[in-house]
């Protein structure tokens, strides 16, 4: 009698737990139909257009203040003087802007404790030089800047530093980006103070009205 009762109890418990399990499994796997569809993922169509990094015209030359027919500045290659004039070639490179007495005297220098040869190649004035001695063309100046300004360069590489124009969606059109020296004067790189565009003439936030 007690054995029979126990047996039927086991059967009932097994049945109930079976039902709970089944419901649980249904809830777990059967839910797929109710869940909202996968979020739409943006897929750019076709090939991506180019991202062009603009190099300022006349980079790596001494500006004469004149312009050519296209409005580009006319510059003189550094080697025009530094390769041919014996006196200039033989003299060791001046290292501080304050010591420039005869040439480049208009140069304003506010870039930490750098010296001229920190960036300019002492043996080839038409080139720049990395800290490890590697020659770099003036057009690749960003590699040189990136040696110290790594965080800015990382942001730049990810599109979060430096002005740009063109398309956010490169599948529809190209983009043009600024080179470091398009905005920053390498000899005095801090962004200068400037007069802002005129304020709005509306009534809000405007204590004068």
């Amino acid at each position: 009698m007690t054995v029979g009762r126990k047996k039927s109890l086991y059967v009932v418990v097994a049945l109930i737990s079976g039902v709970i399990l089944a419901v649980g499994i249904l809830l777990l796997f059967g839910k797929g139909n109710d869940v909202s569809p996968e979020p739409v993922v943006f897929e750019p169509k076709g090939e991506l257009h180019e991202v062009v990094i603009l190099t300022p015209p006349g980079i790596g030359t001494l500006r004469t203040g004149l312009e050519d027919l296209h409005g580009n500045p006319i510059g003189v290659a550094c080697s025009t003087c530094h390769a041919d004039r014996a006196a200039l070639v033989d003299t060791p490179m001046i290292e501080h802007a304050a010591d420039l007495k005869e040439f480049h005297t208009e140069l304003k220098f506010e870039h930490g404790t750098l010296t001229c040869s920190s960036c300019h190649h002492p043996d080839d004035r038409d080139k720049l030089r990395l800290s490890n001695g590697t020659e770099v063309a003036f057009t690749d100046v960003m590699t040189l800047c990136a040696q110290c300004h790594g965080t800015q360069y990382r942001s730049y590489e990810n599109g979060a530093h430096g002005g740009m124009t063109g398309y956010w969606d490169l599948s529809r059109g190209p983009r043009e980006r600024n080179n470091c020296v398009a905005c920053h004067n390498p000899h005095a790189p801090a962004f200068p103070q400037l007069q802002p565009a005129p304020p709005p003439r509306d009534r809000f936030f405007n204590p004068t009205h």
Partner: protein
Amino acid sequence: MSQESEEPTVGGVTRRTAMKALGATLGAAAFARAMVPLQALTEETSVDEFLQKHYKEMTPEELRKVMDRLEKETLERYGAEVEIFDAKPIPGVEYGYALNLSVCVGCRKCAEACHIENNHDRKTNNSYIRVLEMEQGSMDMERGNASYDHPVPAPGKFYMPVQCQQCANPPCVDVCPVQATWKEDDGIVVVDYNWCIGCRYCEAACPYHARRFNWSRPEIAAEEVNPVQAYLSNRIRPKGVVEKCTFCLHRTREGKHPACLEACPTGARVFGNLLDPNSEIRWVLENKRVYILKEELGTQPRFFYYFD
């Protein structure tokens, strides 16, 4: 009996006739007064515009007709030949905008570019962007000054440009009594300027002071009108309606950057598709310390500020 039915007259006119005449006169006067607003229709609103349907209820052909009419009106009123088109959201795109407060210098070039791009009223120098000059150490935008006019950046200050935050939960949309403003699939909150009744509830509801009201018909010289116009964005707004930043949808829905980003000389602005994991905006959100304005209000802006 027959004597009672005879009505008393004064000079041959019964009281009944006199009352009828009085009633008719008052009724006619009231009707004429009620119809007065119709006279104004021809001045600011044409009959076609009065009968125009809501943007969402128009068929593409009806909308094209409306845009043709608006092009004609722009030519008549401003002397400018413009092309108005209907820019639709791009599937799989939700826009996000980020602004780096560490590099913004407060030059207002963004506000100026907005002014030109979006055909704003020249006399108020209106713009969808207000650049707030803020005390360093303060984060309260209500205490920002938008009317500074001295060389920037001034010592001890930082600059926070504020425009429509394109909220995912926009209070301005909730309060509109006529549904003239709504959120589109790409997250941009737009206005049907021809459906707006100018009650300005939305302007009051916006915690970012992002909406503007056209107190008068915008003044722009013909040669300064930007001829590339979308129905929902930069077409010249009529008098008495509310307008707002649309992330330049006439540009961005064509894949271009907004005008304010292109104008920024410091590169403080980052724009892109929040749904594209490889976009620049996603990199900023994942790698920079980002915050949103007035987070406690639960508006869920799509405009992010960050420092680095």
